[in-house]
């Protein structure tokens, strides 16, 4: 069934352009039907999965190589799969309306659904290679969607940046998976994860870990790869809401969660996740302070959220894993909502700069209400689900196995910064003074459906969190941290230190808002003074440097001088041939088996050598041509001597024709000139002699190395099967007739070419 669901989505991605052309008006609603059905079908499996029954499907892919395409729906896959299809359907409804003002939307919907299918495949994959294929699909569709407005250079650049960084991560990941295969002899996830001891005792543990971390960190925009995500905001808002906040950037999180049981026993794993996670959490929140573009603010808080998720996985306590899953859901709900709202604001007011809008509640009360609830969730204020998740994160921080102090401090600051960002959006954009002459209208129902549903879910789950625990969290948790158990989620924990922390966070955030101007100025000053590193610029500097290096290298290697290309080839060939003689010893009995050259052959050979030398030294083209013809004749005579009658006939005819043809052509060419100086001639003589000598050795070696001949067959069957007595002819026209046909074709092509070259009239320059 899983495969059917997946294929259904992939087919939909092919049909999406058709559906969109069929009805531009309702394309979003129509398109969301299939993902929604998939969502329902997955949702009805919740009881099964929480009961420990996982549906697994295997299809042999390339059985000779042991490649299997396999899918599995377990607790962890389920939570992600529901997010992907559920939010996906809502986004499609939104995008159907949002994209109406754009061109080429058919393509857009194709990409978007393709992404959805790939992402679903990624979380359902039950073996590493299947996972990897879908992983790359998501990178690819992300590239296409970020660069959707490809007329804009910034969009192209951001798309390229995202592709290169996630592509780099993808390669690292593939290498990591291959190493895992070397350790386990299988790509099957269940087998690998079920036996962490094998990897722990293997020297490949550290390389695998580093490669997997690079893969996950690039995908999930974790420091130092965080910079592509704000750039990706060039994409239309539905894409930002879907790929770059709710789903694709969570692929790295998914992978880390999935592989956590495998590597959590290693300290390196725990430390790198905690360290990079905490740092990213802080950097993202910090960077969001000075942003003015709504989508950039949201992007940096997304970076911060991703860091938080990574840190929580790294902590690997019951609290942390529980918090991570809740936060994953919360963040997907509120961030998708807010991105969609940012798109709405841009659509209705023409800008998404925070200081250019204000007082939107007067014009769009419904949209403002939805956004304010989402912002409450983002700030972690009751009664939204965001509050519960923030409490859990603090709890996890307090219970962190190491460095609890630092995690708590940075977590506190990050939360305060994010609260500040929420406050700015809430108070400056939706409340506050109206700043418009023209009154923006309430967004249409299609643009509000998705956000409204997500916010309502967030609110309901915030009020009644208990349902979540048994149905989704517990089944997922055991895959991240075996043996762990989810806590009963409650909105009200009673008065304790965590509540105090929450309270302090709110106070800090509010204080920051009150001194907004000063805080922003201070942070921008600090950014200018101390954090000057521009990751994105550095990245493109790297690319430019690489391009420069490549063009320099090409200029050296591709110099344009024909004979030096050939010289390189021959010198390299000589070295390679010489290498084949390494360790070669002629057999002892060889000397006896050698035949002495007969007199006739000596004469023919002398003819060949003398005429060749004449060609080499000839001052006249005609002499050169005639003597090279003589060389050919000498070879023909050797053919006769050693039983090659057909060959000799052909050779003599070919040589005659060539001399005739050559004479005609040369007649039209200028006289021979000596271009080369003595030194280059000496050098060429050395190269030619070495190559010739090596070829002589090679020829000799091949004569004295009798292998089993395959010719027996032809000799035996020439008359029996083909009724021909001349075996050579039978081979040509019967046994290998198709080759001869090819040969005739070549001749024909050469004839056409010659005709064209002779008749072609070109415009005089």
């Amino acid at each position: 069934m899983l495969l059917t669901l997946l294929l259904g989505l992939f087919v939909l991605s092919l049909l999406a352009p058709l559906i969109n052309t069929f009805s531009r008006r309702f394309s979003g609603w129509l398109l969301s039907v299939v993902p929604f059905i998939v969502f329902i079908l997955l949702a009805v499996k919740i009881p099964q999965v929480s009961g420990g029954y996982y549906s697994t499907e295997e299809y042999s892919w390339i059985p000779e190589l042991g490649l299997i395409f396999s899918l599995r729906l377990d607790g962890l896959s389920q939570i992600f799969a529901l997010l992907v299809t559920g939010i996906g359907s809502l986004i499609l409804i939104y995008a159907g309306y949002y994209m109406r003002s754009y061109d080429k939307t058919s393509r857009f919907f194709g990409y978007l659904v393709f992404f959805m299918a790939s992402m679903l495949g990624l979380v359902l994959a039950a073996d590493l290679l299947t996972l990897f294929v879908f992983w790359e699909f998501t990178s690819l569709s992300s590239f296409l969607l970020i660069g959707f407005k490809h007329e804009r250079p910034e969009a192209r650049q951001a798309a390229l940046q995202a592709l290169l960084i996630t592509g780099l991560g993808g390669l690292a990941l593939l290498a990591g998976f291959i190493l895992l295969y070397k350790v386990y002899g299988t790509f099957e996830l269940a087998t690998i994860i079920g036996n962490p001891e094998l990897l722990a005792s293997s020297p490949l543990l550290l390389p695998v870990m580093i490669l997997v971390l690079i893969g996950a960190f690039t995908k999930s925009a974790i420091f130092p790869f965080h910079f592509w995500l704000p750039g990706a905001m060039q994409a239309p808002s539905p894409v930002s809401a879907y790929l770059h906040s709710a789903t694709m950037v969570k692929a790295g999180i998914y992978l880390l969660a999935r592989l956590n049981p495998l590597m959590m026993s290693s300290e390196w794993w725990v430390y790198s996740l905690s360290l990079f996670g905490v740092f990213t959490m802080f950097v993202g929140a910090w960077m969001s302070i000075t942003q003015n573009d709504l989508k950039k603010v949201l992007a940096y808080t997304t970076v911060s959220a991703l860091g938080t998720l990574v840190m929580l996985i790294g902590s690997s306590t019951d609290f942390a894993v529980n918090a991570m899953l809740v936060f994953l859901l919360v963040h997907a709900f509120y961030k998708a909502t807010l991105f969609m709202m940012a798109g709405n604001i841009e659509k209705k007011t023409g800008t998404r700069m925070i200081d250019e809008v204000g007082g939107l509640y007067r014009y769009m009360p419904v949209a403002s209400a939805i956004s304010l609830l989402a912002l409450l969730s983002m700030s972690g204020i009751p009664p939204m689900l965001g509050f519960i998740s923030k409490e859990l994160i603090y709890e996890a921080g307090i219970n962190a196995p190491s460095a609890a102090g630092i995690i708590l401090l940075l977590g506190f600051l990050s939360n305060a910064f994010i609260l500040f960002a929420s406050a700015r959006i809430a108070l400056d954009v939706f409340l506050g003074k109206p700043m418009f002459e023209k009154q923006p209208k309430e967004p249409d129902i299609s643009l509000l459906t998705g956000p409204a549903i997500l916010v309502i879910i967030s609110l309901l789950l915030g009020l009644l969190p208990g349902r979540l625990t048994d149905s989704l969290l517990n089944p997922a948790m055991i895959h991240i941290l075996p043996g762990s158990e989810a806590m009963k989620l409650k909105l009200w924990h009673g008065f304790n230190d965590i509540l105090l922390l929450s309270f302090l966070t709110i106070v800090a955030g509010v204080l920051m808002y009150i001194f907004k101007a000063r805080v922003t100025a201070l942070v921008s000053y600090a950014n200018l003074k101390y954090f000057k590193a521009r990751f994105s610029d550095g990245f493109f500097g790297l690319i430019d440097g690489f391009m420069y290096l490549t063009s320099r290298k090409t200029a050296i290697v591709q110099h344009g001088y024909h004979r030096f290309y050939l010289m390189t080839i021959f010198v390299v060939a000589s070295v390679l041939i010489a290498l084949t003689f390494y360790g070669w010893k002629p057999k002892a009995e060889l000397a006896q088996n050698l035949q002495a050259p007969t007199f006739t052959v000596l004469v023919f050979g002398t003819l060949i050598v003398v005429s060749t030398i004449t060609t080499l030294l000839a001052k006249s083209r005609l002499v050169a041509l005639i003597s090279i013809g003589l060389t050919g004749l000498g070879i023909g005579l050797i053919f006769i001597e050693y039983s090659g009658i057909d060959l000799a006939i052909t050779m003599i005819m070919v040589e005659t024709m060539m001399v005739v043809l050559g004479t005609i052509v040369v007649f039209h060419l200028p006289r021979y000139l000596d271009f080369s100086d003595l030194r280059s001639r000496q050098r060429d003589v050395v190269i030619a002699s070495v190559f010739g000598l090596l070829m002589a050795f090679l020829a000799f070696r091949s004569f004295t190395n009798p292998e089993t001949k395959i010719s027996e067959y032809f000799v035996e069957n020439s008359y029996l099967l083909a009724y021909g007595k001349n075996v050579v002819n039978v081979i040509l026209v019967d046994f290998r007739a198709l080759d001869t046909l090819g040969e005739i074709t070549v001749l024909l092509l050469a004839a056409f070419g010659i005709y064209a070259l002779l008749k072609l009239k070109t415009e005089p320059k």
Partner: protein
Amino acid sequence: MEVFIALIIGFLYGASVYMFLRRSIVKLVLGIIFLSHATNLLLFSTGGFLRGSPPFVDEVGSDASLPVADPLPQALVLTALVISLGVTAFSLVLIYRFYKETGSVDLDELAQMEKK
């Protein structure tokens, strides 16, 4: 015998390489001809050196006591011969055309023309 033929093959290869490394385009074509000569001879010689026994059979099939020359290399060389005729003819006309278009038979000049 083997040594002698091998030396001739090597000599032809050397001649072809030397011609390849010249600047004149005519010599380049001569190099191509030498290269195919050398290769044909090499290919032919791998069938062994059997005198006066061309690969013919009579109606009852072959008789193992009367060995014939290996027909396979001969068939290969025959094909190669015809192809090399095609290649040589084509390259001869190509240099003719090259001269008509550029007024030069010097390959180094071609490189400089490209650079400009």
